[in-house]
């Protein structure tokens, strides 16, 4: 099986350790949910994978590319969408997508067609030429998601993608992510909405205190938590595995 992401021995310390000796493997074509209490190290891990934060130690490989040695090559096939949408208030969604497509060097004709398609799929076609400054948080999230998809990344990393979305928009985004995975794309996401992970994720990683506590399918996690197969919810498993680690401070 091709591996989309291999992380080995990842370490990061700010004022105190945020991520410690973390190993993670995400297979190509799967939706992987990284769960953990606040301050567990989820965002720090994903930022290191996206090339935003320099690890103190460890290896990161994205589809076989050493992300630390060849960051540009790794970034070219990766997209990152944080929980706070990275959009410009004074640009319209279409202008924003033009800029992002330019950054990833997408051929202009393809980029324009893709932008129009994405905005239409995300129900933003009517606002395509309206500046983002008055958009709701959910609308900005959708614009940012369109930006993350404009270069058709092989690995999509999303930090809390459903934050601020209403029920209809959340459904839209979930469907888009599922479509992407069905089409062979790879998605890693963090979420505090455990039902989403339970329903959508092929595999789940649970992280706390900067360490990966458990990883696998829901059934595998149940076994690790000592719960019977199909007996308990992800919430039960999560709470049992992370008991005593819920009060971290570093995201």
């Amino acid at each position, binding site marked *: 099986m091709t591996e989309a992401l291999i992380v080995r021995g990842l370490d990061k310390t700010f004022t105190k350790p945020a991520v410690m000796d973390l190993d993670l493997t995400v297979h190509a074509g799967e939706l992987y949910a990284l769960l953990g209490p606040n301050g567990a190290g989820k965002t720090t891990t994903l930022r290191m994978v*996206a*090339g*935003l934060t320099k690890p103190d130690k460890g290896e990161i490989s994205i589809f076989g590319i050493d992300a630390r040695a060849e*960051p*540009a*090559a790794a*970034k*070219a096939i*990766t*997209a*990152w969408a*944080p929980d706070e949408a*990275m*959009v*410009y*208030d*004074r*640009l*319209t969604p279409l*202008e924003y997508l*033009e*800029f*992002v*497509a*330019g*950054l*990833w*060097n997408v*051929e*202009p*004709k393809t*980029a*324009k067609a893709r*932008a129009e398609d994405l905005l239409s799929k995300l129900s933003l076609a*009517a*606002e*395509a*030429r*309206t*500046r983002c*400054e*008055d958009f709701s948080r959910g609308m900005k999230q959708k614009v940012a998601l369109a*930006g993350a998809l404009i270069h058709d990344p092989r690995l999509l990393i999303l930090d809390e993608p459903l934050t601020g979305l209403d029920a209809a928009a959340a459904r839209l985004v979930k469907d888009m992510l599922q479509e992407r995975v069905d089409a062979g794309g790879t998605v890693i996401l963090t979420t505090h909405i455990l039902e989403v992970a339970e329903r959508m994720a092929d595999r789940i990683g649970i992280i706390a205190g900067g360490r990966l506590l458990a990883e696998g399918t829901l059934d595998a996690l149940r076994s690790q938590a000592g719960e019977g197969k199909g007996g308990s919810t992800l919430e039960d498993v999560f709470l049992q595995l992370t008991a005593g680690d819920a009060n971290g401070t570093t995201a």
Partner: protein
Amino acid sequence: MTLIAPGSILWLLGHEMRLYWRNFRAGRAGRGARGLISLIVVGVMLFGGGVLAALGLHEVEVPIHPISISVAALAAAVVFTLMLSQTLSASSEALYERGDLDLLFASPIGPAKVLFVRSLGVAGGVVTIFALIVTPLLLPSVIWGHPGWAGVFGVLGGLALSSTAVGLLLAMALFALIGPRRTRTVAQVMAALVGAAFFLVSQTRTILGEQKSSSLFAEITRQAQEGRLHPSPIMSLPLRAMLGEPLPLLTLLAGSAGLFALAALALGRRFSDAAAATQGKTAARPAKATRSEARRAFSAGPFLATVRKELLLIRRDAALLSQVLLRVLYLIPTALLLSRNAAEGAGPALAGGAGVVAFLAGQVAGSLAWITLSAEDAPDLLAVSPARIRTLRRAKLAAALIPVALFLVAPIAVLTWFLPSAGAWTALGAALAAWSSGLINIWHQRPGKRADFKRRGGASWMATIAEMLVSALLAGATGLAVAGLWPWALVPLGLAGATLLSLRRGDAQIARNLRTR
């Protein structure tokens, strides 16, 4: 138990002051000892000037006659317009900045009280700036021989209150006349015009070409000597108040406080309605695209895409435009003088004007380069992209220099028409000054918020000073070259080059510097 009742004006004022102080401290965070030292140095220099003035003026009594009355009234008017420029801008921004306004208006506290306190905050902010400059200059004289001159502080307070009232009234009038979508932009531009008004008026004679130089003070003196100056009694109010005469001072303060209270209390409800109406109304763009816009192809590659993005952001930034406009307004008299001199073929006389053009090019480029290079609203987006950082920097620098080039076209074209060599030297000097400012901003990036542009809040202290120094040196070189003394121009040019070399930083140093922030 608190001494001040929660919800009272004093309680709200305390809340505002606490936020103001914390914002100020947050804005200064990271400047450390250097920032403090620079403040102390400036303070000591001003205080030194104040001591010298106190020594010189110890025995001097300011006479109350037409010249002193007119000069004091003129000074008060200049300060008023400068304050109005700030209060108009602050009043219009207060309508759009959500901050805690929604929380306050949703509380049982009346909107008039909220506006009253917020307006007091605006007036307090304005008076603080002027008091910081005036106090060290004036205090020695007040302590030693002229206690009555403390009236200047009262006059400053009065001017701050009345300019806040007028700023508020103007902002609300604009809101009623042109609606929420355009008020912000128009108010910013108006603030720039008001700020430059006195400078432009003082240069009227230059602009109209009646006389090449004549200060307002010289004009007042001449009129007084000819016995044609008869200021009305009300014009003597500022001077008498500044000298500490109780009745004029009280009259001025009471009048200003009355105007302020009237504006703030009467507009309270309207202000809260207007603030509510601005929500969701800042985007003036229609959803429908023009045909050419719809047909326009996407920009290809990171360089062109970044240039386009930065130019769009510059074009849509009302505060930024008003600041650039202000600088261009200051350029108008110089440009006109330049064109007249050019018409007369006065080569050496063009030197000063050409230098000013080069200096302003450096300054405007510096401001725009700070905006494009340091005030990036989505730095993570650029960091996760595969685009090379050098490509992005070049694109951002290009985007900052394009508007500068556009605003230089007119003066350089005029110069070239009359004296091609002067046009060429000015173009070269201005281009070098602009490029140097851009380079300094690349080497000494200091990420900040776009909203901080007005006070270059995030800009590096050293970069700002260096930019000014290099612009001034290159302006000098340009002036000397235009005057036909081009071998002498090599001296400031060499100094500018040496300064730039000493400021130069490599990619690794820039990255390290950004990481440590």
